[in-house]
């Protein structure tokens, strides 16, 4: 999706590389393949994963591409094993990635918590499917809470980016590697299974990976230096508290610097639809339909789910309006929307519309809900 004339992308634009490079050739790829290719172009050294639908195209792509480059591809015996291989490899300073889908991501949570505690950079891709339990292989957005509120134990956060197009799958993969290295943190690319399986044209840009900090902490053998230690156990409560304060300061820094969103025809809107990922993309069509019918409806699409793009809401100005949050879950991001509006001192109605279990909302459904919502607000 090329941002249209009326679209504004807030915060830092992902992986645009300055635009001096000659125009990259367009290739037709699935979302999952675009992620895998972008990871290779980001300098991926090692990838560890376990098969699960609907993300298996990622390991299949990398199984073919990584070994000839002298890089590591390992199919682990479980998701747990895979994330712990990531933990080990990230500890040596490598560019590392794993990918999975919802149940597999649940299995990785302990490992992600260790990686967050030990402050190692790595990339995790969750191609979300419907749950709970084994659920379905069809795409969903039911892991929003798990993704942005920590997921594993211990109160950590990590950057979470949510693409809406195959092009964004590529761009945001490169960006998520940058964030991981910059903040010494696990970082998550979060998309639903439908986007992972969607074919679209994509252009690969050069990753913007300049000015990343050196990895002096890596465990590569204590040659000419004191031993390094990769560790997340800090037994003494005051010491652990100090460590956690540092982590929290890092998360606060991310909240200041790393918010990303797309605003579309929202400036004069009476109703703003807030939706991320695939749902945000569908909402864009609904906005166009509503605008053609003379309805003043716009879209705010969070691209960074953590940090939540509070600035995107602030940037819309003080104009009174209604809000409609659409998600492929029973209402998760809507909590962050309400919190954000509350923090901004806004007391406007927030309506939620969700489809569950892998059902994708259609633009027509969204139009209908929006019209009803506008009517409830007194608009014609």
């Amino acid at each position, binding site marked *: 999706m090329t941002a249209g004339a009326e679209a504004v992308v807030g915060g830092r634009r992902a992986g645009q590389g300055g635009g001096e490079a000659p125009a990259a050739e367009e290739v037709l790829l699935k979302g999952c393949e675009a992620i895998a290719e972008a990871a290779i172009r980001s300098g991926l*050294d*090692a990838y*560890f994963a376990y098969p699960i639908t609907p993300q298996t195209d990622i390991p299949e792509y990398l199984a073919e591409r990584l070994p000839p480059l002298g*890089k*590591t591809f*390992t199919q*682990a*015996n*479980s998701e*747990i*094993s*895979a994330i*712990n*291989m*990531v*933990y*080990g*490899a*990230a*500890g*040596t300073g*490598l560019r*590392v990635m794993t990918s999975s889908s919802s149940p597999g991501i649940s299995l990785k949570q*302990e*490992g992600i918590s*260790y990686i967050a505690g*030990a402050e190692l950079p790595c990339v995790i891709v969750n191609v979300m499917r419907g749950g709970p339990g084994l659920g379905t292989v069809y795409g969903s957005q039911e892991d929003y809470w798990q993704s942005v509120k920590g997921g594993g134990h211990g109160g950590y956060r990590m950057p979470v980016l949510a693409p809406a197009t195959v092009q964004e799958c590529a761009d945001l993969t490169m960006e998520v590697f940058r964030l991981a290295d910059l903040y010494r943190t696990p970082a998550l690319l979060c998309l639903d299974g439908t986007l992972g399986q969607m074919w679209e044209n994509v252009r690969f840009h050069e990753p913007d990976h300049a000015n990343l900090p050196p990895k002096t902490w890596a*465990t*590569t*053998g*204590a*040659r*000419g230096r004191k*031993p*390094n*230690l*990769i*560790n*997340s*156990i800090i037994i003494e409560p005051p010491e652990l508290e100090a460590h956690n304060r540092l982590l929290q300061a890092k998360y606060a820094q991310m909240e200041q610097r790393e918010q990303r969103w797309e605003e579309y025809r929202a400036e004069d809107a009476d109703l703003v639809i807030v939706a991320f990922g695939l749902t945000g993309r569908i909402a864009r069509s609904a906005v166009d339909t509503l605008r053609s019918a003379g309805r003043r409806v716009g879209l705010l699409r969070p691209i960074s789910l953590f940090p939540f793009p509070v600035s995107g809401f602030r940037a819309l100005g003080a104009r009174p309006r209604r809000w409609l949050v659409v998600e492929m879950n029973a209402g998760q991001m809507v909590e962050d929307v309400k919190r954000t509006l509350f923090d901004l001192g806004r007391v406007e109605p927030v309506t939620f519309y969700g489809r569950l279990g892998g059902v994708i909302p259609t633009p027509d459904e969204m139009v209908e809900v929006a019209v009803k919502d506008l009517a409830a607000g007194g608009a014609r």
Partner: protein
Amino acid sequence: MTDALVSGGTALLPRVEFDAARCKGCGLCIEACPEHIVEFEHVFNQRGVQPAHLVHDGLAQCTACGNCAVVCPDSAVEVENRKKPLKYGRNPLRVGDTHYCPGCDEGTVHELLAEVIDELGIREVTVGVASVGCTVFAYRYIDIDWHQAAHGRATSVAWGIECQHPELRVFTLQGDGDLAGIGIGETIHAAARGDPTVVVFLNNGIYGMTGGQMAPTTLLGQKTTTSPAGRTARLQGSPIVMTEIMAAQAGCSFAVRTSVHDAPAIRRTKKYLRQAFLNQEKNRSLSVVEILSACPSGWKLEPVDAHQYLVKEMFPIYKPGVIKEPPGGMPR
């Protein structure tokens, strides 16, 4: 504690030094001395135990065999034979005082690892993987790079470390709960993949760190806090014999079971550890050294009694010896 009479004296007499501050009073050195010239002091150290020392005039009978130094789990004894260039005691890579209970064999294994890493000259390319359990703080005790792993996942972390770093010598230090319980899948797959990891497997048949619960390797009849009436095959299943399972995998090229219950066993175990690191370099596949270890606190036995229990009860189930020789024979 250094006694002027003991450490000085005639040049040809051995130099024997007991570090009273480090002594935890386990008494293993007293048991190990063939000349019966080691005893507990009458005074207490700051740990609240009576530390070991040489009996008055004991030096004259000392043969500088080094057993007292070799068996000390806290590397608190130093013996120098001044007739030959032979010295026993703490290796410079073995740092700090351990959190282990008195008489715990894990300290002994730390000393052996430090010595082997030092003697092979691989300190600068070695990365240790500490696991969850009593080995969780292993990184405090050997002066190398360490990566502390989640419970059961040490071999996966090890593969992550070595996959793009063939120059690194990676070893894991894992207890039986870690390796044979929660991490059995990781363990067997590391052996099947043939990761070039040296797996040091400390089998004491109990969860020590959490206070003595039943482990996958707990013996039938053995009482633990979660098998208070003793483990039965019908209720809790039978002990898992791990090293044979690992040896059965093609990617495991060297498997041995040993112990550190007395000085000869410790010397043997050091040789096996050395061979494991040599095999790592030569065959680039997995080596496992299972070390049957006493857990006096968990077993509720005095340290010396715990070693007797180990020999009597564990050896019949976990038979010591070389289980799989590397291709081309034992490394030298």
